[in-house]
């Protein structure tokens, strides 16, 4: 009988694994992040707890320096925060020449929406100048995009920021 208990206990109390520290976004389902897809019954609790390890009321993940007192991101910092948070998606979409993150960035830079396709081609063509090396940071990437825009005959006037 003891064996049975030990075995059942073994099933129930798998240690949490694969804690993904890099993605500290709070929300229902952090549990499932903590437990990943480790086969086992722990998942049940993971997906139903919907927990967060934050307790910051109205706020965002990037820290309060980019937010106003009530937790909304300051307009003048919106592009920086967006680029930091979506660096991989932007790298991919600039290379493939399309994507929602890319058109969102175009909007943040004040480019008009009817020029989205042109903007995507433009960043695709200038990919090497925007991502200079595999060490390029998000800040360097953003200032490179802005620099390319300012030296472009059309975008320098159609993107207002």
């Amino acid at each position: 009988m003891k064996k049975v208990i030990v075995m059942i206990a073994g099933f129930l109390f798998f240690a949490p694994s694969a804690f993904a520290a890099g993605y500290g976004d709070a929300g229902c389902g952090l549990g499932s992040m903590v437990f990943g897809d480790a086969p086992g019954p722990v998942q049940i609790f993971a997906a139903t707890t919907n927990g967060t390890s934050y307790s910051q009321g109205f706020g965002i993940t990037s820290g309060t320096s980019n937010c106003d007192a009530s937790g909304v991101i300051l307009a003048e910092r919106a592009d920086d925060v967006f680029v930091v948070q979506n660096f991989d998606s932007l790298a991919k979409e600039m290379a493939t020449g399309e994507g929602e993150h890319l058109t969102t960035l175009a909007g943040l830079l004040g480019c008009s929406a009817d020029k989205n396709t042109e903007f995507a081609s433009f960043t695709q063509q200038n990919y090497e100048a925007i991502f200079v090396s595999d060490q390029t940071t998000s800040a360097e990437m953003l200032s490179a995009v802005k620099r390319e825009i300012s030296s472009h005959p059309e975008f320098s006037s159609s993107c207002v920021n």
Partner: protein
Amino acid sequence: MFFLCLGHSSIFASPADSEAYLDILVEQSRKKDLSQKRLWHLLLHYKKGFFGGVESQEDGPDFFNAAKGKTDPQAELAATLKQFFSSLGSLKKGEEHPQCNFPARYKWLKSQLSFDPQRLQEQSCPRFEGWRKGLIPERITLVFASYYMNNPASMFGHTLLRIDKKREGVDQKLLDYGVNYAATLDTDNALLYSIKGLLGFFKGTFTIFPYYTKVQKYSQFESRDLWEYALNFTEDQIDMFLRHLWELGGNYFDYYYFQENCSYHILSLLEVANPALRLTDSFWFHVIPSDTVKAVTRYEDLIAKKVYRPSLLSQMNHKRLQMNEQEAALFQALIVDRNLVKTEPYMKLNVDRKALVLDTFLDYAQYQSMGAKGDQKTALAGERDILLERSRLKFQRQDRIKQIEFSTLPEQGHGSDRLKLGSGRTDGQIFEEFSYRPAYHDLLAKDTGYGKDSQILFLDLTLRYYNDLHKSKLERLQLIDIISLTPYDQLFKKKSWIFSIGLDTIKDIECGLCNALKTHYGIGLTYKPSPFAPAVFYTLLDFEVEAARQLEDNFRAGGGGTLGFLVDVTDDWRLQVIGNYLTFPLGHVSDYAQLAINQRISVNQNLDLRAEFSRLKDKEEWLLSINYYF
């Protein structure tokens, strides 16, 4: 009037007049019976208590102005009115004026009682106004995160709201704010985590986040498809929604897994926006996110449009389905050796096919980089050669428009409770069967709205009445019963697994249909020819432990193997064939082989008919049943 003694004393500009006007307002509110109005109960989150009366579900003390506010709507209303008269001088440093802390209550009471601004001064609320200006809402969208790979528990889904900002001409949904209700965790110990969640020891709070962080988390990191339901609310209703969200922002509810969870309070927010909606009434035992989508979509006029947002893996799989065999092989090979882009098989492809292969690879690489531990934020940049090669193609594929939907709408799924009535014959005995479970989806049921080839059941109870024996027997009580048949894929190499624990009936040994405490675990592989193939084959290595008084040594432990086959013959007809063999070398030494053939025909979304046959040793069993989901 006792409530005048509550709260801290306030210094009014002309105290006598303020007190007189407060008395008038309280008297008016009594006459109009405001404290019994639906909106007041929604704003204070009052629910009927077990022993009559009401109790608020809100657990933060700052949420109430009266000491008895949690259970006394009238006292709370009077105390709230009194607080609205507070002078600025009476506030502690950093404290907001009550009118600013409770902007929804203020707006509603003002409209109901027509406040005289001469006698009750309206305060300015710069913090609240600033917050509201940052959001400039145009619309509220309900977002449902669906199933993710190899995790049947994720079938329960998750719901959040998105506040869609008014923008001129540009579609920038990613920059909108998501509203999330979640438990604040203070432990990563799995056992504590479970117990605290079940008993309501976690605090649940509302938070707002840029939607792109949600997309990153659900759609990319966890790779769950998102369904977005844009909701029809008037400007005034959206205003009420925001005001109430602000009231909740600084407070908390005790968080319960099954009842007051993320979905429940999301619904209660929508009820505040439009009190005519009855969204939370029907939930008494458990609230499952997919059920909340059903509750909302039941109001057809409420839904403005539905949008499918494919997860990163769905985007990748969409591309994989467009590849021919050579391209698929090249894509697989590229994962091992990036230099293949410099070799002939790649070079001789047309530019659109090159782009297809590289885009698929980049989706894969991004998914892998999201899974990387630590803060390797620039992981994808490590694929610089591929990114550069891709950008030099100067080609845009533009196939986001034709995206295939890899998951189905949750509101089209069957209900999560199931009632089963059946009749059958086992080993010559006729029996009637009754079965009920509160959640959630079994492998044989139609999987529209659920994850494919998966099962998760809680508290699955089955009773039988044997006609000739005149005896009722507990056939089965499964605490948990999970099946995860994840098709084996070269890219991810996921194993399939099953797990169950509960009471079952021993049938291979003559013990008078005795019950045993049983735990079963199986691990193996599943084969599915393509993501949309109607059939899967699976094989499992099984382990089982049973405990029962009737067994020698009171237990038996062993293992064996399972072969299974599942096919959707038509949309509504599913056939399952399972063969398994188990041998128990420990405890009560025994073994048996079993063959089962099960069929299900769906009559409609919430009704199906089943015919189940099994043969264990020389005993045959038949069962015909009708299953109702609600």
